[in-house]
């Protein structure tokens, strides 16, 4: 299973010049816990960082400032960990572990952002795989049981026994 098939698409983004109240509104509207923040450049929008609902709620409110007055660009986490869309489950887990993150940006061959994959997404895939294996085990047990049931009642074989005192064979009963 590669990241391209696991990741969530499209990614909800907003420009870094937006404010945190707008960010919260977007998160609520799309029911997501994070947004990718972009920066406008001459080459088009570039990914500048990530902001999570945690960053928003905790940093801003803890500091006692009005969300509408804080530019997203000031609060975002610019430590971007990305992986190619052909990376597999193991690559993604290793990367999250090594970088200490629970989200990865997923990029295509051209280096463009195509999706986001979270710890929960990976867990869901692993759980599905494990359920699959459990079903293999169950099916195996059921097949064994079915075979044993068939073997317990075989068709009666024809037994040929020599008649006592003669050399010929008579069919038995």
């Amino acid at each position, binding site marked *: 299973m590669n990241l391209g098939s696991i990741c969530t698409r499209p990614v909800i983004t907003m420009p870094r010049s937006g404010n*945190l109240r707008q960010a919260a509104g977007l998160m*609520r509207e799309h029911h997501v*816990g994070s947004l990718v923040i972009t920066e406008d450049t001459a080459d088009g929008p570039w990914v500048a960082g990530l902001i999570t*609902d945690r960053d928003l*709620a*905790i940093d801003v*409110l803890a500091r006692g400032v*009005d969300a509408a007055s804080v530019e997203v660009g000031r609060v975002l986490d610019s430590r971007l960990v990305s992986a190619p869309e052909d990376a597999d489950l193991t690559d993604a887990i290793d990367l999250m572990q090594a970088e200490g993150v629970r989200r990865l940006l997923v990029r295509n061959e051209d280096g463009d952002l195509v999706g986001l994959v979270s710890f929960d997404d990976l867990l869901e895939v692993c759980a599905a795989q494990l359920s699959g294996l459990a079903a293999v085990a169950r099916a195996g047990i059921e097949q064994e049981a079915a075979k044993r049931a068939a073997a317990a009642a075989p068709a009666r074989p024809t037994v040929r026994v020599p008649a006592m005192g003669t050399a010929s064979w008579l069919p038995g009963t």
Partner: protein
Amino acid sequence: MDMKLTAGEICNRKVTVAHKSTALNEAARLMREQHVGSLVVVEETGDGLIVVGMLTDRDIVTAVVAKDVNPGHLRVDDVMGREVITARDDASVLDLLASMRRESVRRIPVVGPKGQLIGLVAADDPMGLIADELHTLVQALVSQPRREQQARP
């Protein structure tokens, strides 16, 4: 060998709490300071701290948008989840998982017989446990051929 795993045994006993009247920005400051994503809202009684609700960082996010009031004027009880979802300390890990699923929550406060706060279980906690148990199972399967070889060289 009797490994009975209950909510009381796996829960985290260090829980950050707040009161219903705590100001929301104070609650946020607490979350940041303690590096937690939620606060258990409690009331002090003769039996200890009684759980009256939960406040998560996500509740705070929706509050920032939903209210036209400056969120600095809000209190914990303006925003916290209304339902009190808890698990008994003698509930099994399986019961816990079922509760989390049924109530669609990632964290459940664990309480004693009088409803007093004992600890908090997050969805991540049983994960390590399940992974370890699975590993133990795999080890058993892997060592089985070795065992057979030793018994019948």
